[in-house]
């Protein structure tokens, strides 16, 4: 009998995604669901979707979920986690959500070392509202609100969340990955798993930033979008681990017990 190598994760509902073909949200959803399955935490996980293309994430994830207003996910997740410290709580956010309107909530949740996990989709645009400039839009990148390209004098520079948060003492684990190739998808999954593990071990704030294709608003084919991540986006947003204090946080905790 053939061995089943590939099936729908249990933590994903039977619904078809509404995301555009080639969208990084779909891939990331699947990875998060696989990780929840593998860690056996479906029954104790509570997710917080954003305002953004992933606003309907509760139609897909088969875990308890509470809608957040635009950018407020980390505050909402903080409330859930502090009320139920033994549950696993994640906030799923886009770049506008996390790094523009919700920068205060995300920055301070990170700084408090809130024991939550943030899945951060950096697609360099506002996907849901039709491709406007995001805080992470590249210089010279054309969007519907930067028709001549992002101008550093008028619009400022791409916001680097992992770099910025890595300067804080609060966060425990920060990694930037992408999902533009099979190898990078595997790496992204490892990072997401580590981030959830960090929370399960009670080690504090974890965030995985995912450079994520938005072929629709980049006005590219899916293949070209994946290439653009390699050739342009990851030059501005280098991949890698920006902070991993898991071992250091764990040691004193273990010594105490």
């Amino acid at each position, binding site marked *: 009998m053939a061995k089943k190598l590939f099936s729908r994760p249990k933590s994903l509902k039977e619904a078809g995604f509404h995301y555009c073909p080639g969208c990084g949200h779909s891939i990331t959803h699947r990875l998060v669901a696989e990780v929840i399955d593998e860690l056996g935490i*479906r*029954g*104790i*996980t*509570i997710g*917080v979707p954003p305002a953004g293309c992933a*606003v*309907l994430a*509760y139609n897909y*994830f*088969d*875990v*308890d*979920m*509470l*809608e*957040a*207003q635009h950018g*407020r996910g980390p*505050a*909402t*997740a*903080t*409330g*859930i*986690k*502090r*009320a*139920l410290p033994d*549950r*696993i709580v994640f906030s799923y956010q886009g770049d506008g959500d996390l790094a523009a309107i919700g920068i*205060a*909530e995300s*920055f*301070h949740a990170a700084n408090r070392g809130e024991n939550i996990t943030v899945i951060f989709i950096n697609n360099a645009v506002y996907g849901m509202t039709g491709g406007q400039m995001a805080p992470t839009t590249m210089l010279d990148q054309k969007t519907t609100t930067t028709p001549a390209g992002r101008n550093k004098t008028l619009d400022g520079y791409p916001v680097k969340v992992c770099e910025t948060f890595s300067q804080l003492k609060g966060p425990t684990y920060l990694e930037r990955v992408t999902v533009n190739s099979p190898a990078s998808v595997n790496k992204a999954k490892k990072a997401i798993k580590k981030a959830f593990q960090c929370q399960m071990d009670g080690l504090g704030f974890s965030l995985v930033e995912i450079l994520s294709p938005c072929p629709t608003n980049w006005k590219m084919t899916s293949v070209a979008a994946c290439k653009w991540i390699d050739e342009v986006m990851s030059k501005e947003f280098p991949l890698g681990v920006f902070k991993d204090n898991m071992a250091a946080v764990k040691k004193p905790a273990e010594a105490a017990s």
Partner: protein
Amino acid sequence: MTKVLMSGNNIIGEAAIRAGCRFYAGYPITPQNELTEYMAEHMRTVEGGVFIQSESEIAAIHMIVGASSAGARVMTSSSSPGISLKQEGISSMAANELPGVIVNIMRGSPGLGNIRPSQGDYFQATRGGGHGDYRTIVFAPATCQELADLTMNAFDLADIYRTPVMILADGMMGQMMEPVVFKKPKPRQYSEKFMLRGAGQGKSKFIRSLILDAIDMEEHNWKLARKYQIITEKETLHEEYKTEDAELVIVAYGTAARIAKGAIKRLRENGMKVGLFRPITLWPFPELKLRTLSKKVKNYLVFELSTGQMLDDVRLALQGYADIGFHGRPGGVVPTPAELANVAARHYEKAD
């Protein structure tokens, strides 16, 4: 039961904790800092108590949204400018049918204003405040005892109706000291089926207010409207003071009602039969109770620490039924009972 002497802000904090509030988030703003500090000091002494000094009022309200969905009894507090920031979350709580208590110790605004007493946030509090077609139950205590009782009641009503409830007071009430007795809190009645606690082995749930289907959206809004109708029918509270023989009735709430009682004492000493109608719930406004009173009394004077906000609700209740005058000072300066007595005396005589 023992009486204790406490200041208004501390009374709210103590009543909340006794009522089972176990999650408080807030951001400092005068004149309510004592409440935030009280929660910081006392939440750590009760089992499961959480206190967070948030990065902003916006974060605070969304933290209590999260904790409420998780099943905690939650509260946040602020003063006027901070309450403006909380409106996004209050709208969200109303739409998502999440219980919680919000305290507004009003100050003199708009803008930064100052920290002196005012009642300028009446419209914001009673008309929903944030975006969308919703209402918030609003209690307007006028004594320290009411601060204690109504704070406890606020948690119960928030649970029963699964909706945010506001305590609307001002800096004067926050600072003033009176002896209070804390009543025994009622056992909580709030079903676990409304809480997100992880799906366990069962079906997952979600809480959301984004409803893309137009008909479903409308039905959700009708559902909220039906709830507000029931609240309007069942939950109005008011006090009538010396209205039995009154020729003139002052309509005032909160601090203004305290001033009005002082004025009424003077007026009665001078032989003028003046009474007080004091709404205790501002929304729902005790409209029918006021209209009923107009069968007996035809002359009214609305008195507020604003240029006339509750006045609109009094007009809705009494226009065509009685004569309505108004006296207001828009916050900052607190008028004396003597000033109000003078104004009321003129209004009293005018009607003869």
